[in-house]
């Protein structure tokens, strides 16, 4: 037996699939409104990621929009953590392709430590960076690895 909750679940699922996964609009919905809403959601997601990761945005410069939109097509918005978690995922996406600028590495690690993974360790250029979140507080240390080249 189909309940009211089942019906609403289907309506909501179909609406979000149209807005976020390029599915056709559900019957009766105005395609122009759906297209406009999809554009607003995408713009908002990109803008919030830009605010959450300003060093990354500066590092990518004019290519930020193109890179982010490519990422957003492949990676859905995260369930938890909001724009900070989304920006961390974007950093992961870039890093996997070797496109994460070095100067944005620390920011990326901080975003991850704040949202998804409590402990972060990475070697970036001559630095070893260690970040940990303990009961909501972030502690970080950097260690210089190369002697004599500073």
């Amino acid at each position: 037996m189909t309940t009211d909750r089942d019906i609403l679940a289907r309506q909501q699922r179909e609406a979000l699939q149209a807005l976020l996964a390029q599915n056709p609009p559900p019957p009766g919905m105005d395609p122009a409104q759906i297209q406009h809403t999809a554009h607003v959601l995408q713009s908002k997601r990109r803008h919030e990621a830009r605010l959450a990761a300003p060093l990354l945005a500066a590092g990518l410069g004019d290519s930020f929009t193109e890179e982010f939109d490519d990422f957003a097509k492949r990676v859905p918005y995260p369930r938890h953590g909001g724009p900070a978690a989304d920006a961390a995922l974007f950093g992961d996406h870039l890093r996997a392709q070797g496109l994460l600028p070095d100067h944005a590495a620390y920011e990326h690690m901080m975003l991850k430590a704040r949202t998804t993974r409590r402990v972060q360790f990475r070697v970036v250029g001559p630095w070893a960076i260690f970040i940990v979140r303990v009961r909501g507080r972030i502690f970080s240390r950097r260690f210089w690895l190369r002697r004599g080249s500073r």
Partner: protein
Amino acid sequence: MAEEEDAEVAVAIEPITLPKLGIGIGWRPELAVYIDRDPSLTFVEITAEHFPHRRVPPALDRLRDLGRTIVPHGISVSLGSAEGFDRDSLKLLDDLAKRFRSPFVSEHLAFVRAGGLEAGHLMPLPRTRAALGVVVENIRRAQDGLSVPLAIENISALFAWPDAELSEAEFLSAVLEQTGALLLLDTSNVYANAHNLKLDLRQFLDNIPLDRLAYVHVGGGIESPDGKYHDSHAHPVTDEALSVLEELCTRVDPPGVMLERDDHYPADADMRAELRRIADAMLRGKQKRAGKP
């Protein structure tokens, strides 16, 4: 018969005394210094999701110690989700309310996720009796998990669902009546829906339970080149949005009114002027209510 059925689902709403909040603002780190320096701001609203680990800046504890009210506000509980709301987000709201001894918390009449997808934004609900039943059940369950009252906020809808059985005012009123929840009225969202979806804002204000009004949001916005109004919270409050606040104040004296600003933070003098415009709109509405020219 219909009236009898409605009477069965309506909860017994006990009269409550709503605290007088005054003029407030959405607390953001970028505004912390301004808020500290402006004693006319008697309450602040915090977005719960900004403090996922429950660690809050000392500035907020200081505000609370100075007697300013702090209201936790949620954006990801998703009270309208058919799949059920997010209990962790609700617990976060409640934990913050306990910490700051808040009079109530607030969330939206909306859904933000379905079928494993996150919208990242507040989505409107179909205004059907079926959807009404689901959201009422969700809100009642949410209220069971809260130690303080819950206020429900109207959203600005980016799209309209087909086959609406209830007007926006009827839908919102039924939710409040059947759950006993308070009302957080966003006047800029009322303007946005009037402008974008041709809602009659006066009729809307006339038909919602203003006696449940806990406080009011006023946010800045901008009209895009395609003629749509965007509730951006990044621009000054428009005269049109302020006129909705004025219209509201011809009907009721809101217990609290606050400015929402999330980006492009203005200089202190401009912020003061923005708050002054809000206070002036309230005064104009109040004078009209009192029959003064």
